[in-house]
Each structure stands twice: as structure tokens, then as C-alpha cells.
């Protein structure tokens, strides 16, 4: 009789184990109340994906940058041109721009109560410069091969000695956020150390909890030196699918969301949220690959540009010019010395055909590469294909995923395609663009080589006189617009929807990439 019972037991066991496995494997949290929604409120912000790291010297992706902006306070920050001192009290540059002294505020403290001193800043810079740590920001502090020197003057002052003058040094400093020496000292490999999982920061919010694939929870830090955050906590909620995210915004599961152009109308109609729009600081361009002979001919480039109506091109990519302004200069609107009046190429089919005939390029065939996962690029490519067909140019579309496109673009003698889209956001310092346009620069996607052009960039980098610099950068933008090897299309706009119940948006100062400069200023109305 034993065997019979064994059989029945086996089947029952199979079913129960499957079900138990299903339920027990859920880390069902029943005790912890999640966000500490006290009277200050818990702001839920949607992010596209998990943050790559909580260690600022390795943070490159927008998710990590946004969260670190809440956890850590920078030395100083620059919003639409004007400087604001945070951890630092003052930054004085020497006459020859070769020496900078930085003075920290008094009484600064880390979230765990340890004092924040010049030692931490020194430790941060040494870690960044240390080749073994391969931090992402090392290149900004190595001027043609020679790293800068950092030494501690006293408990609150640091001196930076540069091997050569650099106007862009201040913009590099803005990106750096000090990390706690007492936490990371002695760690062989900062990148992989497990101290990164429970970060100790210096910003208005401190780290509470991270649940993979779901959310990152940060709460108000009382140790913050300036005005405490009115919010009790912020939850950065991971939402991959943007239409279910828009839905969650409507039923209150989310309070803040970066909105895609095509969802703008839907969110506006729903009326739950205020919509903020501000320049994203990014420039979308179209790049001609100068390694290809046909592309070397200026008439061909001009013919192509004349065949496109910039207004319609933007409408195709961003569904309306409301979400992306037509761009004239290769500099983004928030960059110093940006020029508005530059040569333009109005939509003129006959001129385009004439130019093509002059260049002997009838029946031209072009291979156009674009990033397959980006909807704007895909739609613009389709529009471009149809428009160029009208002037007799045959366009073959080549969709590539991020890794493949990146590798081809950075290959100096790449001939896999004739044209492609480009895009960058370099911040307010014009010298940062040098990396994209110098003849032998790593990221010169169009591989355009011009001595005169290079000289102007080098002079402007070391020129101390402001209007001399303005005049140099003016000539640069002028030449680029005439040569049209990189054709600026649009200045992108970031659209952020915030639940109507939250206020303090102006004080928090909307900012590209990290959404807001200071989350602490936001609060929940009663």
C-alpha cells in the first residue's frame, strides 16, 4: 500500500512546490512603510532604467547623474551662465589661468556625521587622476598629456597647478563631486568596491534603499549645510515603457516624468500635471563623412542641405517645432559667445538640382546611418529619404544599434556610410567643443580637416581677453556654417511633467540631464 500513497503524494508535492516557489520567491515586504510620506511628502520621479553606479567618479549615464545630484553636493554649479557656490566658498584664478585656489565652506559634514574637509577633495582628485582607477573624468584634468597638480593649503583650501593655461578648467571643476575619503581610503579598486552599494553623500538627500529593477529611495538629510529639503523623501521609480509611465502619472503612481514629444498632447489633456519645457542644451546635427570623395565636394553638401526644409525635418523628428527649435550654430543656445545670425540654406529644390548638376553628381547614391532605437532619428531619416528622392538622390537607410554605430563613428578612416546624424551637449564652455571639431580630435565625426580652423580653436582656448575670445569663436561658427560639414538641425528641448500637487519648481531651477539643479527646493502643497 505504501507505493500507492507515494504516487499520490508525488503529484500533490509537485503542485504545492510550484505554487509555494512562486509565492515565497517574492520578497514580499510587509513591515517597512516604503517612502516616509510624512507631511513633507514623497516625490516619485520616473527614470528610464536602473542607475549604473552610486559612485560619482564613474557616473556617466543620466540616471546615475540625476540620483547623485540629490545624494552629493558639487563644489560649485553653473545654471544658464551664472555661477553658484555650493560646497566651495570661493574660487580665485591666477592672472595667467595656470593656478586656481578653492576655499571650502566651514562646518561641512558627510551624511554619517564625519567632517568634510580639503582631505576629501584631495583624495577625490587623486583617485580621478590615478590611472589604475580609470575614472571617466580623468581626461578633463590631463592637458595634452600632463596631469594637473593638486595640493592641500590648509584644512579648507586646495590649490590646483595646471601645466598650461586653460579657460575651460572651471567648467571641468563643475562636474566634480567630492567623495568621502574615510569610506573609500584603502579600497584597491573603487569601481568594483562594494562600498558603492550604500553611498555616504553630502547632498540634501541621503541613501535609504535600492531594489533592483524597481526603485531607489532617498530621504531628507539633516546634515545638509544649507536650507533643509522640504520633501521627506524622493523615490526614483524605474519605468521602461513610456506609455505605461504616462498612465502611472495620471493615476498618481508617478509624480514626475520626462515626457516624449508624442505624449505631450496626451499629458496636457489629462490635466493632472504641470508641463515644464526648457532647452536641453543638446544640439542635433547632420554629419557629412569627409572620408568619402563625393562628400568632399562643397556643392554636393550644399545641394543636399538646400533639398531639406528644416521646419518640416524638425516636425518629422520631434512632431512639432514647439519641442525643438531650429538651430543655426553648432554651439548650443546656453554656450558662451553663441551667434544667432549665421549663413542659412533655405529650402530650394531647383537650387539644389542646379548645384548637383554643377558638381556632376546626378543620380547620386548615399548611404545614411542612424541610431535604430531613437524614434526622432528614424522618422527624420525617413523624411530625408523621401525629400532627397525628389531631387534625384537615392538614399539607402542603414539602421544600427548604439554599440555598432558608436564603434563606426569613432573609427578615423570609417567609410561604411556617407552621412549620419550626430548629437552632443557640451555645456556652457565653448572650449569643450574643441574635442568635436579639431582635425585629429577623437570625436570629429565628420573627419573635417582645416589648419585655419584648428589654429582658431587653440588660440581661443588660451585667450584671456573676453571679447578677443568672442571674436575667435564667432569666426569658428561662421566658417563651420559656410563649410557645412556638420549641419546643425535643432536645439532639443526637455519636457518634464510634474504632478500639480508639487510646487517650488522655479526655485529648484530646471536643468538638462539631471532634471532639477536642487531637488531640495521642491515641496508638496497642502
Amino acid at each position, binding site marked *: 500500500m505504501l507505493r500507492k500513497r507515494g504516487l499520490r503524494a508525488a503529484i500533490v508535492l509537485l503542485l504545492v512546490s510550484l505554487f509555494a516557489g512562486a509565492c515565497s520567491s517574492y520578497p514580499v515586504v510587509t513591515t517597512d512603510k516604503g517612502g516616509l510620506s510624512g507631511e513633507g511628502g514623497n516625490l516619485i520621479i520616473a527614470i528610464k532604467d536602473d542607475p549604473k553606479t552610486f559612485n560619482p567618479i564613474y557616473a556617466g549615464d543620466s540616471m546615475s547623474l540625476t540620483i547623485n545630484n540629490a545624494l552629493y553636493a558639487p563644489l560649485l554649479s553653473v545654471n544658464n551662465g551664472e555661477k553658484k557656490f555650493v560646497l566651495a566658498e570661493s574660487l580665485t584664478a591666477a592672472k595667467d589661468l595656470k593656478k586656481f585656489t578653492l576655499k571650502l565652506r566651514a562646518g561641512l559634514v558627510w551624511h554619517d556625521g564625519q567632517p568634510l574637509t580639503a582631505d576629501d577633495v584631495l583624495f577625490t582628485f587623486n583617485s580621478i587622476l590615478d590611472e589604475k582607477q580609470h575614472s571617466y573624468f580623468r581626461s578633463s584634468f590631463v592637458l595634452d598629456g600632463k596631469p594637473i597638480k593638486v595640493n592641500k593649503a590648509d584644512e579648507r583650501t586646495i590649490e590646483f597647478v595646471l601645466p598650461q593655461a586653460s579657460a575651460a578648467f572651471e567648467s571641468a571643476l563643475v562636474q566634480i563631486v567630492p567623495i568621502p575619503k574615510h569610506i573609500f581610503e584603502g579600497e584597491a579598486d573603487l569601481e568594483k568596491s562594494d562600498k558603492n552599494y550604500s553611498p555616504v553623500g553630502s547632498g540634501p538627500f541621503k541613501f535609504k534603499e535600492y531594489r533592483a529593477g524597481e526603485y531607489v529611495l532617498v530621504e531628507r538629510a539633516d546634515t545638509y549645510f544649507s536650507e533643509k529639503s522640504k520633501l521627506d523623501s524622493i523615490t526614483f521609480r524605474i519605468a521602461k515603457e513610456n*506609455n505605461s509611465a504616462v498612465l502611472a502619472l495620471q493615476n498618481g503612481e508617478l509624480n514626475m516624468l520626462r515626457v516624449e514629444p508624442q505624449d505631450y498632447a496626451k499629458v496636457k489633456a489629462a490635466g493632472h500635471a504641470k508641463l515644464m519645457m526648457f532647452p536641453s542644451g543638446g544640439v542635433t546635427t547632420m554629419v557629412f563623412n569627409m572620408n568619402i570623395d563625393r562628400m568632399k565636394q562643397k556643392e554636393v553638401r550644399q545641394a543636399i542641405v538646400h533639398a531639406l526644409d528644416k521646419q518640416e525635418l524638425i516636425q518629422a523628428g520631434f512632431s512639432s517645432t514647439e519641442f525643438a527649435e531650429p538651430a543655426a550654430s553648432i554651439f548650443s543656445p546656453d554656450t558662451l559667445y553663441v551667434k544667432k545670425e549665421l549663413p542659412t540654406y533655405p529650402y530650394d529644390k531647383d537650387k539644389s538640382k542646379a548645384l548637383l548638376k554643377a558638381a556632376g553628381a546626378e543620380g547620386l547614391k548615399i548611404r545614411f546611418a542612424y541610431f535604430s532605437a531613437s524614434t526622432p532619428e528614424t522618422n527624420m531619416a*525617413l523624411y530625408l529619404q523621401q525629400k532627397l528622392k525628389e531631387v534625384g538622390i537615392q538614399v539607402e537607410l542603414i539602421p544600427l544599434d548604439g554599440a555598432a554605430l558608436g564603434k563606426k563613428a569613432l573609427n578615423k578612416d570609417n567609410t561604411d556610410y556617407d552621412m549620419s546624424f550626430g548629437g552632443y551637449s557640451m555645456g556652457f564652455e565653448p572650449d569643450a567643443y574643441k574635442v568635436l571639431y579639431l582635425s585629429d580630435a577623437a570625436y570629429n565625426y565628420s573627419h573635417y580637416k582645416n589648419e585655419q580652423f584648428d589654429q582658431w580653436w587653440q588660440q581661443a582656448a588660451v585667450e584671456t581677453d573676453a571679447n578677443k575670445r568672442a571674436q575667435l569663436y564667432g569666426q569658428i561658427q561662421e566658417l563651420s556654417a559656410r563649410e557645412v560639414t556638420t549641419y546643425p538641425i535643432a536645439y532639443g528641448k526637455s519636457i518634464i511633467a510634474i504632478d500639480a500637487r508639487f510646487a517650488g519648481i522655479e526655485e529648484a531651477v530646471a536643468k538638462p540631464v539631471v532634471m532639477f539643479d536642487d531637488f531640495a527646493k521642491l515641496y508638496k502643497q497642502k
Partner: protein
Amino acid sequence: MNRMRWTLLVSQLRTQKSALIALIILGIYVLAALAAPLAPHDPNTIHLDERLLPPSGQHWFGTDDNGRDYFARALYGARVSLSVGILAMLVSVTIGTIIGAISGYFGGKLDTFLMRSIDIGMSLPSFFLMLILNAYLKPGVVTIVLIIGLLSWMSISRIVRAETISVKEREYVLYARVSGQSTFRIIFRHIIPSIVPTIVVAATLNIAGVIMMESSLSFLGLGISPPDASWGSMLNNAKGYIGENPTLALFPGLLILTTVLAFNYLGDVFRAAFEPKVNRR
């Protein structure tokens, strides 16, 4: 197919009205696919001012997010989806039948080797294989056909192998060996014709699976490259507009559902028509 099986199939079709409906549906779709150029609008021209229009007299299925006529795109999409379905099925059925028949007929070490490699192939998550294979080949119909074909032949070869093993023991195959017929002739004159019914059934069910796989391939961004479209890629693009324009998702989804449904019904009708009871006492 010889006379006997043909009459059986026709009688089965007459009695099972569901099979008739299935044939009619497939007939309409194939005709529509062939007549695609006659569609009122061109599927790929972008009209920025006519974006996301609801179905109307002028645009029967409305327009998509680029202002392209959705009905025309559905017709051209039918061409892609049906051709991918049939071509991929042919690829997987041919490979599957040959390997299955050889492995089943010869048995021994060759059979164990083939079966072990199929076990390995089946335990590699097909999802990853799709992504990786697609990275090698440039996008297009040929790539999709190859990827899907290479992924779905393994289940067919298992079915064919099992059937070959059972047919191999039948006495008319023993007689063929006794009367000195060559192995090649035995496989192609006796074994494969007797397992044609199973192959046909597996083929129709495979087409259904292939069309569904094509739509999930598009979901992963690996399907047909723009400006052309398949039902799968149309469905995938419609994902973003499910809120205000559900029709964008409704039409391709319905078309895929009815096609796959038709193939499944046909598969079952073939199975019923060629049921082995025909030659059982």
C-alpha cells in the same frame, strides 16, 4: 500527392466548415498581398499634416504616426509577413525533414550525435540567439527568414525522426530492403512519402509559429527595417499610441490572429484527413 490522399482531403474540407473558412481567409489575404500596388495610397510617403487620423472614407484604416496610409501599409505588410512565414517554414521544414529522416533511419552514433546537438540547440534561449544572429546579418527579409528558419527546424526534425523510426519498422519498408532497393530510394520513395502527412501538419503549425515569432522579433527591434513594414513591426510601433489610437494596434493584431488561426485550423484538417486509421483495419 496521389489521388487517394487528395480525395480524402477534399472530403474532409467539405465536411469541416471551419477549414473552408480558413482557406477563404488565407485566400483573401494572399490576393490582397498580391494586389498591394492597387492600394489607393503609397505605403511609405510621409504626410506630416495627416498624422494619426482615425479610420475614414479616405483612409480605411486611418494613418500612422508619420501620416502614412495604414491600409496600404497593412497590404504591403501582408506581403512581408506571409512571405516570411512561408519561406521560413520551407527552410525549417526542409532542414528538419532531412536531418530527422537521416537520424531516424540510420540510428546509432549519428542519431545520438544529432539528437544531442538538437537538445543543446533547444536549450539555448532562442531569444538570445535571435538577438545575436541579427547582429551579424544586415536587416531585411532574408535575415528574418534565416533566423526564424534556423530556430524552428529543430522541433520539426524531432517529429520527423520519431515518425521515421515508426515507419522504418513497417513491413513494406522491410520488403523494400529485402528487394535490394538502395537506401536513398527507400528514404525518398517509401519513408518520406509515408510521413508527408505529419510533415504537412507540422509545416502548417510551423507557419503559425513563425508569423508569431516575426512579430516578437520586431518587438525586440530586430524585424524588417523601415520604411517597409510587416504586421509585426506595425504592431510594435503601435505600442506607443495604445492610449489614444488603439486602432493602430487593433488592425495588425487582428490580421496576425486570423492568419495564424487559419493555419492552425488547416493543420488540424490535414491531420484529420491523413489520419493513419486510413490504412489501419
